[in-house]
């Protein structure tokens, strides 16, 4: 057990080391004046990074690390919202499609999934205001929160920070934030929705073929009982594992969505900085976003290992 965690930690450290090398290479290329040899330069760079001096933005003279983390938090809020929405819909649909494999309802669900996967994200994002207009929904179409609320930056997550302002605004700032999240998270959830349906259907149909399901049927259990006690425990590790490997693709889409909705997330931060010629954000973004995705995938690995016996096999193998 400890051995496994140590190995994951080793993987984390070596991968993070390569990430810093990539970031440094970019940093070195962007800085035209080189006063030190490369290796000394890398050591100085790493010392600065570890001290927290990640540089100052030339646009507004704010520290880049704080800006990057704040925009990451905004993108994360969006992604978590999208995840919750997509998974609550997609997992039941995927299960239905997997059970009635090759039936009418399966074709219907899978066609929906393929259509959702084929819709270009940025196009859906710019069509979204029009679509919500057709249904007479008045939802905010850009920004992070209504500008009339003044929310102090405490945790960086606007949703949590707005809860600290309940003294002045009651829950209005919080509602405003939630309303600003609805349209972007619907757009982002399309991709997660389609992927999850596909993955769930695949793993369900794999599990339903196995002998222990036949045995459970012959014991006289109903489909619902089998789903609850046998199937679900066996499919969730593979679904989570596959979603984990899609994290960076998902983050790409989240960045696109927050650029279109101008929600002050990582995408908008990068884009405005690049347009202003503030290229120092690029190595910072590699470290922040890459580091975040790396950390979360390793945490998911460890969590899966703790909760699922099938993944625990790796503990005994070597």
């Amino acid at each position, binding site marked *: 057990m400890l051995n496994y965690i140590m190995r994951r930690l080793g993987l984390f450290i070596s991968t993070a080391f390569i*990430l810093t090398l990539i970031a440094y290479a970019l940093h070195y290329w962007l800085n035209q004046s080189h006063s030190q040899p490369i290796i000394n330069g890398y050591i100085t760079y790493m010392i600065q990074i570890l001290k927290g001096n990640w540089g100052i933005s030339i646009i507004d003279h704010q520290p880049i690390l704080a800006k990057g983390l704040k925009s990451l938090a905004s993108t994360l809020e969006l992604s978590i919202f999208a995840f919750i929405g997509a998974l609550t819909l997609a997992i039941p649909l995927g299960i239905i499609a997997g059970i009635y494999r090759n039936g009418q309802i399966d074709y219907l669900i899978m066609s929906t999934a393929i259509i959702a*996967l084929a819709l270009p994200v940025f196009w859906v994002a710019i069509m979204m205001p*029009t679509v919500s207009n057709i249904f007479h929904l008045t939802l905010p179409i850009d920004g992070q929160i209504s500008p009339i609320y003044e929310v102090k930056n405490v945790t960086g997550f606007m949703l949590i920070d707005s809860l600290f302002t309940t003294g002045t605004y009651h829950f209005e700032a919080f509602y405003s934030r939630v309303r600003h999240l609805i349209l972007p998270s619907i757009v982002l959830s399309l991709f997660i929705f389609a992927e999850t349906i596909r993955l769930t259907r695949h793993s369900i149909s794999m599990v339903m073929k196995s002998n222990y399901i036949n045995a459970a049927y012959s014991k006289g259990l109903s489909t619902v009982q089998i789903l609850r006690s046998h199937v679900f425990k066996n499919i969730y590790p593979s679904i989570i594992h596959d979603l984990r490997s899609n994290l960076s693709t998902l983050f790409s889409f989240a960045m696109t969505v927050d650029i279109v909705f101008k929600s002050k997330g990582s995408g908008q931060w990068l884009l405005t900085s690049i347009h202003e010629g503030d290229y120092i954000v690029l190595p910072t973004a590699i470290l922040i976003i890459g580091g975040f995705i790396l950390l979360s995938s390793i945490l998911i690995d460890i969590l899966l290992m703790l909760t699922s016996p099938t993944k625990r096999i790796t503990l005994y193998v070597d």
Partner: protein
Amino acid sequence: MSINDEFDKKQIRTPLHYIFQIFKKKVAAIIAVWIICTFLFIIIFADFIVSHSPSEQNMNALLLPPYWLKGGNTAYLLGTDELGRDNFSRLIMGIQRTLAGALIITAVVSFFGLILGALASSLKNFKASILHHLLDSLLTIPILLTALIFIVIFGSSFQNCLYAIAISLLPQFIRSIFLSIETEMAKPYIVALKIDSMSDLQLVKNVIYPNILEPLVTIINRVFTMAIIEITTLGFLGFGVQTKGTELGAIIANNFEFMYLSPILVLAPGITLFIIIFSFNVVAEGIRHAIIEAEQ
């Protein structure tokens, strides 16, 4: 019926032929194949299809609706944009650029990816672990960020966008290919062939690749989908815009402000993009199912 019956037209010659026989019976996939053929026709003969130059402006015909609506003109099939440029011609040229770009990226990435993936699977010990850690760290960087970095390094133009996207898609492709090869390698028949002193290269070429066709189709389709989405996203964000050329994402970004005056400006390129991605996905699904059925 004997398989080698010379007079039977439906005789099965090779596994690929058998897969094709099954594929032919899938109606949706065949329709999608014809749609793709139409798009390929558009790519090749775009210059002859367009009625106007995509940059030709007509100040007397600004923001015209498509011809079937009131006020439309048959000279401009899909109407005009805010500078009086023909939407239809711009759309056709946009399809040419975007789709051809995506197909080239897919071909290049698949070519290098298949070679590098096979090499990666034959590496042992220290070299393999270095490669895997490198891939692991490259995979944590989102494709859009990698593409933006390469555009900053190369400079912004359509060609550099293609390079940037190809490079950013390569690690994912190598990793997926490697994983499929790895699962196939663990099977007993491969061990038997290895004992029979077959070299790794021969094994990969003659045994592994024919047997991982099904995941291969999925992976290549994924690369194509990501390539076309990234090309249009970068075009939409304003990278790779050229004065002469047009590109579907750039057209959408350009027409975005006038969406409420003339919805067709944004609808037409978006729906075209959707049809392209959708039909490629349907064909890939069809091929995949045909392979699975053939294997059974």
